[in-house]
């Protein structure tokens, strides 16, 4: 009897031990995966800290009020960033004002109005492809379309002697708008898709028209997602150099633009110019410029996040 129970016990326990081993392994695998995820999310933060520390070391030597009030100069101690800051602010304001309505409009059309035809899927595919086009290509397009005011065939659109928008704030802003539109459209589409169909159905159910449904239910619900897309897109636009160099943003501009048709320079261009100079003082000035660019970017992000939370609360009500 005893022997029998004993052997049966060992049978069970040996089976059990087999399960125990694999359980430990599975737990181990789980921990490894957790570790990988943690490392993945820390990489970004660590890199940001390293970057911040790096620019903190030489970035603040020239950080003072005159850096914001003076225009560029050949003398590093009086050189300032004002023209570049004003240029970037002008450009980004126009980019936000044009890319938001066009981008959201396109997304609403594609998601809410357009029938699934071959044409719409072609449009859809092209928008995704455009998101991957190198920025310099948009610069070449902008030079032709906005600066010179022609589509490559036929005469240019001219008023008096000036054709197109010339090398102005407007040309730069419209070029950057083209550059970020695909991102805005795709992000807005995803946000609109994530609004549950039940909300639309309920709205139609009480007799609302399509316009009423879209404007008072779908868009407010999708707005936080759309805002995230806008932030990402604008953050990309503010640091772009290649396309605006292509359309002819200038390097030495010792005044602030007063109308959208004035010539301009932008923060990344000024930084690029300072970095490529022989004198070490200008390299420190460039670092200070990067700090200002970073602060502008973070301020923009914070503003957008606050806006997101506010909009999120309102739509939840």
């Amino acid at each position, binding site marked *: 009897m005893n022997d029998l129970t004993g052997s049966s016990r060992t049978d069970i326990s040996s089976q059990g031990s087999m399960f125990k081993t694999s359980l430990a392994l599975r737990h181990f695998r789980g921990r490894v995966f957790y570790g990988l995820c943690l490392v993945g999310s820390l990489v970004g933060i660590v890199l940001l800290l390293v970057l911040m520390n790096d620019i903190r070391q030489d970035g603040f030597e020239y950080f003072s009020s005159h850096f914001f009030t003076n225009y560029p100069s050949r003398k590093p101690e009086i050189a300032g960033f004002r023209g570049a800051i004003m240029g970037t602010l002008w450009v980004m304001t126009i980019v936000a004002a044009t890319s938001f309505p066009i981008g959201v409009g396109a997304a609403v059309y594609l998601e809410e109005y357009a029938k699934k035809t071959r044409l719409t899927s072609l449009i859809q595919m092209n928008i995704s492809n455009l998101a991957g086009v190198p920025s310099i290509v948009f610069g070449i397009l902008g030079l032709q379309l906005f600066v010179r005011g022609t589509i490559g065939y036929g005469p240019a659109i001219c008023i008096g002697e000036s054709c197109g928008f010339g090398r102005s704030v407007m040309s730069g802003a419209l070029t950057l708008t083209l550059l970020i539109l695909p991102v805005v459209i795709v992000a807005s589409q995803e946000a609109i898709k994530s609004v549950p169909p039940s909300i639309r159905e309920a709205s139609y159910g009480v007799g609302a028209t399509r316009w009423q449904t879209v404007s008072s239910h779908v868009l407010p619900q999708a707005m936080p997602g759309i805002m995230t897309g806008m932030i990402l897109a604008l953050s990309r636009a503010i640091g772009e150099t290649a396309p605006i160099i292509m359309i002819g943003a200038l390097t030495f501009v010792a005044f602030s633009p007063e109308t959208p048709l004035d010539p301009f320079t932008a923060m990344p261009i000024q930084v690029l110019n300072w970095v490529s100079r022989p004198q070490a003082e200008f390299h420190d000035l460039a670092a200070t410029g990067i700090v200002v660019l*970073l602060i502008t970017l973070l301020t923009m992000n914070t503003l957008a996040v606050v806006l997101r939370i506010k909009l999120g609360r309102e739509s939840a009500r």
Partner: protein
Amino acid sequence: MNIFNSSSTLLKELIVINVLTLFALTVVACGSDSEEENVSEVGSASSSSSNSISNLSGDIAIDGSSTVYPITEAVAEEFQIAHKNTRVTVGISGTGGGFKKFCAGETDISGASRPIRDKEVKMCADAEIEYIEIRVGLDGLAVVKNRNNNYLNDLTMEQLSKVWGPASEDLVMKWNQVDLSFPAEDIDLYGPGTDSGTFDFFTEEVNGEAGASRGDYTPSEDDNVLVTGVAGNEHSLGYFGFAYYSENTDKLAVVTVNGVTPSDKTVGDGSYLLSRPLFIYVSKKSITEKEQVREFVNYYLSDEGIAMVAEVGYSNVSADELKASRKAVDEALQ
């Protein structure tokens, strides 16, 4: 797409991180602010010192070579202090890119680190753009070595050609192949990229044909990268504008060419072989029709304006040539 629906706690954390970063940056900024105050006073003092009132207004569009840029920038800076209502813009499109805009009538003045080419002359003629060519200064190319290198003191043009020539690629790899007195160390070369005017000039002077160069060197459009490269290897050689050498004399030493050391004098009189002229091309139409452009060019060629050439590190043209340039401008105005 879950990231668009992330919970509001995540958003709050994002805000906290952003605000903290901003705060950290501004705190450090304020700390260093006080030290800089005297500097900013110097700045405002010098800009308010010239209070001459001028009625001159209007835009002046300048583009062209990045080598001429520092001179034009300095002149433009001083000009705008005296004439507050004028707006001078200076771009860097390169000599060729500058001429494209100049001959399309888009700019008033174009900087160039080489004389205008036949193709560009034709382009300007087709668009009926007449211009005045003015030599404003000279720029020496410095051939540089590492500070610790003790055998590369002088190279002849033939030796330079042997080092940099297209035929030397994969063949001349050790310094003793260039001269028997040199050690058998690997040759390590740094130079500007093929798009640069400096590259065109150097290859034309040394190898006899613009653009003819060996390909197995480290190219960079950023001269600071070349400085770092040469400073990092005792047996390396590089070339770039003299201004970059004079800012880095602690890391680099200059190699004399045919026994001539590049200096203000040798570059100015042309006895240093690797010196090139710097030009501005001024549109005759702009100078006659636009008062601000006329004043700008006059200021550029005035004693005060032309002094900028030396201030930014280039060599002046002779006094006679300057006089001739001033006369050419006056004649164009009649």
